[in-house]
């Protein structure tokens, strides 16, 4: 398992900040989470049951040589932590090859240096999102 450059960079950015400022960076990811593309407006997306707020996600795997992955997640504004996690995963995974996404370590959330600032319990929501993304990508690749 190896960390793709995009995710490694995000993890570095978090860890480079003093612990009490890392939430500010997470807030930026939360603020900048892209809206779902219009084609998913009425789609029946996968609910991330492990998250306490209504969070839905889906992936696209292109039929190109790399099997390029698209990641789409939506979370309400009242749940900024979850939105922040979604923003990190979208920015870090979107555009990677399927093989790269599947190789992301399951404990990536623990590499962000947020365990103390956010609490381990809250970080589990991010692990759940990552797990669901990887599972969907694996299904698409096998299909």
């Amino acid at each position, binding site marked *: 398992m190896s960390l793709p450059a995009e995710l490694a960079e995000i993890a570095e950015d978090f860890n480079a900040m003093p612990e009490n400022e890392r939430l500010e960076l997470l807030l930026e990811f939360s603020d900048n989470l892209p809206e779902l593309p219009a084609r998913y407006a009425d789609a029946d997306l996968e609910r991330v*049951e492990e998250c306490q707020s209504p969070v839905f996600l889906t992936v696209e795997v292109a039929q190109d040589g790399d099997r390029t992955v698209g990641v789409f997640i939506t979370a309400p504004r009242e749940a900024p932590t979850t939105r922040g996690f979604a923003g990190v995963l979208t920015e870090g995974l979107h555009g990677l090859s399927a093989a790269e996404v599947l190789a992301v370590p399951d404990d990536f959330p623990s590499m962000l240096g947020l365990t103390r600032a956010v609490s381990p319990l809250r970080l589990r929501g991010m692990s759940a999102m990552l797990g669901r993304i990887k599972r969907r990508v694996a299904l698409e690749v096998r299909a």
Partner: protein
Amino acid sequence: MSSEQPDYTQYAHPERLVSTEWVAQNLETPGVVIVESDEDVLLYETGHLPGAVKLDWHTELNDPVRRDYVDGAGLAALLSSKGISREDTIVIYGDRSNWWAAYALWVLSLFGHQDVRLMDGGRDKWVAEERELTRQKPQRQLTEYPVIERDDSTLRAFLPQVLNHLGQGPLIDVRSAPEYTGERTHMPDYPEEGALRGGHIPTAASVPWAKAVAADGTFLPRAELEAVYLDAAGLKAGDDVVTYCRIGERSSHTWFVLQHLLGFENVRNYDGSWTEWGNSVGVPVAVGPDAGELSTVGAAR
């Protein structure tokens, strides 16, 4: 925006509750500190009441190693760093109908902070009324909050005390119905806080926390609260009551209702709650919708 002020004098301790309007009028009052305490650790950063200080239950009020709260020195350091004095009026509000705000209030009460109140309706009501929010963090002067030892004997119950309480006094289980019956070992949408066994503590009455609040998250009038807790759940004046949920946050909300709004004098929150009880070896458990018998009690005493 409604300017109508609820009549808090109907409650046993009306000084424990303030309205959003009162808070709006007192944002800059010396000696009043507004505190936000949320489930979502980032919600404060997205915008909070002007001048409000953040207090996080998970990362600040808990001991980082043991499953317990900070000690007297820890709390003194924490509140001093936030610019809160022992004499200050602390007004707490938060998300999810004030669950975590009530939890923070209860923890501060363990340390005997005299004047600590809830903002009725919590963060959602303030937002719904389109009142001001800001991302600007307050610069408060550091204080010297004294080191006060936590009193765990008056407002808090531990597992052995709950075992001894069985058959002696009422318990209120404030979790959802499927958690109470044992169909679920965790709260809907909270699978990470599960337990090995499902069900409830025998003899506990099921009164989900939400029965205490109106649609806008404010507390129900006293007469309606009495209908829920006295008439339906069978509590009687003078009862020694123990409340619990899964980790003690929703039951802090109910503790607040019983202690401060209805005026019960002996209410203890069992913060170990189901994540302790449902994982403990040998303690009695009842399943299904009935409160259950005491027959199995004693095994673990």
